[in-house]
């Protein structure tokens, strides 16, 4: 009852205060996202209710977020932007903002207030990590392990990944330096708050690679988020890193013998950017949609379909139960206090600066 009235209230609010009611709006919108369960959660929570309110709008989904930076750059060079709204991780948003490919925005102007009147800027808080980035969810990259392959001592420490004696078998790690280098240094004895200072030096990078070298022969490198859940389900790997939402669906929705290892999970953000160079009509439509899709209730609704934490503080108390399974979603959120005892926050500034350098080193280490 409470939820319904909140829903009605915020819908009414959205209709009444939509910023561009009088303006001409394009009736077609191309939204770029990641595909899979994540995109489905966005469709259920944002675009379906929006299209119900505005039946004249056709929404096209493009599953290109993986290559969004390169494609946006190509579109920009060709002078023909065909996307209206793009879902990217925060690091890519920073890059796009730096290259002038994403539009800067004013949170209080574009986004709805919280139901209690808190301004959007305060409601999102620190999560607005770039002037172009409109946060949506908090997710984490963490490990899952096969409960039937770890004996009586399920791992509770991320360094189990580097412990081939206690946990023999293959591991799945992402084919990029980000996160892997941090875990390697942490498990090589570097204090958590010094990880990035160490990683900024060539010696520190070598140290991290040397630690990864100890398990290199037992690693299957993944590049798509769906790889690790599949490898775990097949029993190909004993443990592997991936996004927590993917592990949630393996464990809860597909009932596989997989357990979560929340230790040293790395928090990251995902959200929207508006490409630079839209026409006025397209921009008006995108703004109208965003005002609706990023309000408190919509972000909380998304958590019914996938276990990612909503980016607004005001959405957290509204997170309810899984849409199909009816289980409480809160304990499966990466931000749940039980899960977030030892965490790392993705260091956007560091990786924006060092991504090229460390990536070159990591990739040549990989093929050697």
């Amino acid at each position, binding site marked *: 009852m409470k939820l319904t009235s909140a829903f009605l209230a915020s819908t009414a609010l959205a209709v009444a205060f939509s910023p561009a009611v009088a303006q001409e709006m394009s009736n077609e919108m191309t939204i770029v996202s990641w595909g899979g369960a994540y995109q489905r959660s966005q469709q259920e929570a944002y675009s379906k209710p929006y299209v119900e309110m505005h039946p004249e709008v056709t929404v096209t989904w493009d599953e290109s977020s993986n290559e969004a930076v390169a494609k946006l750059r190509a579109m920009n060079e060709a002078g023909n932007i065909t996307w209206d709204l793009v879902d990217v991780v925060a690091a890519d948003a920073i890059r796009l903002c730096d290259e002038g490919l994403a539009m800067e925005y004013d949170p209080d102007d574009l986004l709805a207030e919280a139901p209690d009147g808190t301004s959007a800027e305060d409601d999102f808080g620190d999560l607005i990590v770039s002037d172009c980035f409109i946060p949506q969810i908090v997710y984490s990259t963490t490990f899952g392990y096969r409960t039937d392959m770890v004996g009586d001592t399920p791992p509770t420490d991320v360094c189990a990944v580097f412990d081939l004696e206690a946990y023999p078998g*293959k591991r799945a790690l992402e084919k990029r330096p980000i996160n892997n280098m941090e875990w390697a240094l942490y498990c090589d004895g570097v204090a958590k708050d010094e990880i990035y200072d160490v990683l900024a030096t060539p010696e520190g990078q070598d140290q991290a690679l040397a630690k990864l070298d100890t398990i290199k022969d037992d690693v299957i490198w993944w590049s798509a988020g769906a790889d690790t859940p599949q490898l775990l389900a*097949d029993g*190909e790997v004993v443990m592997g890193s991936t996004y927590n939402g993917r592990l949630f669906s393996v464990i809860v929705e597909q009932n596989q013998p997989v357990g979560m290892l929340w230790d040293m999970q790395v928090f990251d953000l995902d959200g929207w950017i508006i490409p630079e160079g839209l026409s006025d009509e397209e921009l008006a439509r995108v703004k109208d949609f965003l005002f609706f899709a990023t309000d408190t209730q919509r972000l909380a609704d998304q958590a019914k379909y996938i276990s990612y934490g909503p980016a607004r503080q005001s959405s957290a108390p509204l997170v309810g139960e899984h849409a199909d399974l009816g289980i409480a979603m809160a304990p499966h959120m990466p931000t749940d206090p039980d899960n977030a005892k030892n965490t790392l926050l993705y260091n956007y500034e560091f990786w924006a600066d060092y991504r090229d350098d460390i990536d070159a*080193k990591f*990739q*040549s280490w990989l093929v*050697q």
Partner: protein
Amino acid sequence: MADATQTNAGASGRAPDDASGQAQDSGATGPVLAADGTPLKASLNRALRAQKLRALALIAPLLIFVLVTFIAPIVDMLFRSVENQIVSETLPRTVAELSDWEATSNTLPDDATFDALYYDLFLASEYKNHTRLGSRLNYEQTGMSSMFRRVGRDVGDFGDLYLDQFEDLDERWDEAEPWAALMAHPGYLEDAAEWRESRDADRIDPRDTPAPRFRLAPGIEDLLPKTAQAYTHYAAFMRTEEEETADEDEPWTLVSTMLYEDLMAASAADIAAYDGPMADALQTAHAAAPDFETMTRKAQFLEADDEWGNLDNWATIKVYSPSYTSGYFLTAVDMKLGADGIVSQPEDQQIYGLLFKRTLFMSMVITISCILLGYPVAWLLANLPMRSANLLMILVLLPFWTSLLVRTSAWKVMLQQQGVINDVLVWLGVVADESRLIMINNQFGTIVAMTHILLPFMILPLYSVMQTIQPSYLRAAKSLGATPFTAFWRVYFPQSVPGIGAGSILVFILAIGYYITPEIVGGTSGTFISNRIAYHISSSLNWGLAAALGTILLGAVLILYWAYDRIVGIDNVKLGG
């Protein structure tokens, strides 16, 4: 159009050749004339030319289509491997100043260079070009990305030092309108006010009707040259980027900095002679300027980030300042264009040579596997009765109708350690459960999956060539006393070589550019150079290096094709009967 005339010239070039042969024959009896009295040669030429033109007109749509949609984009992409205008376009003044500086001098560039850098970077950070330049230079020198990113955040504040002191003298120095009155032509201000009015009343769209073009106040350029230049840049920025007029906002701190420099250079008499707007403020500022607290630009840059004191970074800017560079190609062959010329990359960063060799080697292995597997199948297809051959043919073609990704993923299911093949082997007791074979995420997996995927490209040309080989030849050889092997090897096989050639070229060239299959099943030891190209296109955004790698790959294929032509002869290749 140029191509059309060229082709035409080339085509008609042959016609006179034929005709001149005739002319020589008839040389003794004088030129042969056509019915209308013109020489037959000319008449023939005209008829042929018309024919050629008509033929050309018929293929023109296709030719133009191919040129525009295929050749041009490829050439454009390959051209990126040498393009490097970004440095001289983003930092034009700095690059000019640096031409006198030598990295070997072991001293930092002079103050004039830092002044130029300040001006360039201020503009670049307003236009948000500096991070793009930083990423470009970071490919060559580690850490330059962060250097540009950091300074881009700070460079806007360098001028606060002067702006604050001007403001202490007179509040108007921090306001939009007094500045505009000082710098802008009165006519511009009138136009600007009018334009603003129609914009605010929504009568015009600022995108279609930009603000009026900025004009400097008369005489101000002589009095304050640097300030005038900076203010003009500011006004242009407001017009194109902000869609506003110059007097709507207070100018950049760059303008205040330039004003300080102009005031220090100007004589008191010139300043006193000025009687336009803000004359009083200018005089006060001129009197006070010598006592201003100052800081050299070099000191400001070093305070913002001490990387600006690193000679290697400056050497990189200088080495990569020309508009065209060989840097990407050198990187693509594991070398580096540094301050002291061309050097090899450190051992632990050499990857491209290894990957090129691996790509060629694995493509050859795949081609040979395809020949070995495809030859018997093609032979069967060609020699079975029509009905069974057609059935087999469908089996060969079936993979063509299945998605590449599905076929590759199927191999994953087959080959992985908990996969079908390992399960069967364990069940049979051939291998122990603990020592299951590793057949995927390595070279073996890539070779198996790609051989399977490319097999039809070998079988089809082989089959179509084998179909044309008369079975009676084999029978004749046997009846003359050849053993089955001799008959096959001496009679049948040589006739099927054109099919092998065609199949091998197809398979090899397709294999060398494959990337999805190696990406999925290749792990780290089974990846190709194309995986790196894809990485540089979509992840690292180093398109120049990707283009250089692509150009080398294309060159390698062309050389191999040429070698094949020399050894086997391209006329010996048959795709069909």
